[in-house]
């Protein structure tokens, strides 16, 4: 498949996956490998002093195998998100950030003012910013102007699995921005991933759809194929939609 280019990096896979909510680290690793993703998101949290191994994702993930994309999940202000981004970078493992500034606990929709402010600051500090946002064109354009390396609209709320609710908005965003559009959040199953990729967007970031699947490894394989299928269908160009049937077999030469 044609590679995905974000900032100064090229990725073989158009699928980026999260590392949260898996039942075991072994399942997570197997699912990530099955997904074919070469970049994974991680969160920044306190070390459990009594048991430092417990949540340490680097016990399971080798940063030489997967590019790490630290997130700012759980941040409700630009200031908090900037702090989390700096903490992630101080690991020495990544100066990329999946920037989230959340505006509402029930919907986890972004606070777009805070998001723009944090984007400007972090871009000025040399971060490669991938901004989680809603499916609003104006915010997406402002994020691009602010220097985001990729704009990442949701297709439905984080963790909802509702799939692509507004394909028109996603296509509008894709048609008007130059930076890659990575759909982040909302994909629930393989058909969602496929139809989302068919809109022409550059990639998909997902977590819950894999982690909460009955068999995360099987679902990861399905998502890999669905993203590939959707991309290829987009590149191929679909046939026109018609209201009436058109026969596929010749009307001439029907035996009398």
């Amino acid at each position, binding site marked *: 498949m044609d590679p995905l280019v974000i900032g100064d990096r090229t990725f073989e896979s158009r699928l980026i996956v999260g590392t949260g*909510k*898996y039942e075991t680290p072994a399942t997570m690793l197997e699912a990530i490998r099955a997904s074919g993703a070469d970049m994974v998101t991680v969160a920044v949290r*306190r*070390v459990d002093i009594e048991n430092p191994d417990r949540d340490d994702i680097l016990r399971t993930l080798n940063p030489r195998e997967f590019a*790490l994309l630290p997130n700012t999940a759980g941040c409700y202000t630009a200031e908090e998100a900037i*702090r989390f981004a700096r903490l992630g970078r*101080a*690991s020495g*493992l990544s100066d990329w950030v999946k920037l989230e500034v959340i505006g509402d606990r029930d919907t986890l929709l972004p606070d777009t003012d805070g998001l723009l402010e944090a984007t400007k600051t972090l871009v000025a500090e040399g971060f490669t910013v991938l901004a989680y946002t809603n499916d609003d064109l104006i915010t997406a354009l402002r994020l691009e102007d602010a220097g985001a390396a990729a704009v990442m609209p949701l297709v439905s709320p984080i963790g909802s699995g509702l799939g692509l609710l507004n394909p028109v908005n996603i296509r509008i965003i894709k048609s008007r921005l130059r930076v890659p559009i990575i759909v982040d959040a909302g994909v629930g199953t393989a058909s969602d991933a496929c139809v989302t990729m068919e809109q022409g967007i550059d990639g998909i*970031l997902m977590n819950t759809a894999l982690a909460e699947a009955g068999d995360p490894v099987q679902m990861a394989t399905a998502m890999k194929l669905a993203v590939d299928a959707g991309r290829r269908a987009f590149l191929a160009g679909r046939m026109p939609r018609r209201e009436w049937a058109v026969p596929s077999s010749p009307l001439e030469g029907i035996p009398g």
Partner: protein
Amino acid sequence: MIDIHVNGKTRRVEAGTSVAGLLRELDLDGRTVVVELNRQIVRRTEIDSIALEKGDRIELVHFVGGG
């Protein structure tokens, strides 16, 4: 001995303990742990030279699973 706050909990350490000394005491040296001292990130090159002071607030963070 002085009291400091590590990840929200009070901890008693020898006066003069460095950031690196605290990490050794907690058996966290050699791990990918980022240290924030009173909201300022401590660079790796500084961990030996910075001595902890009474009331210091330290956050020790690392990467965990997330989406």
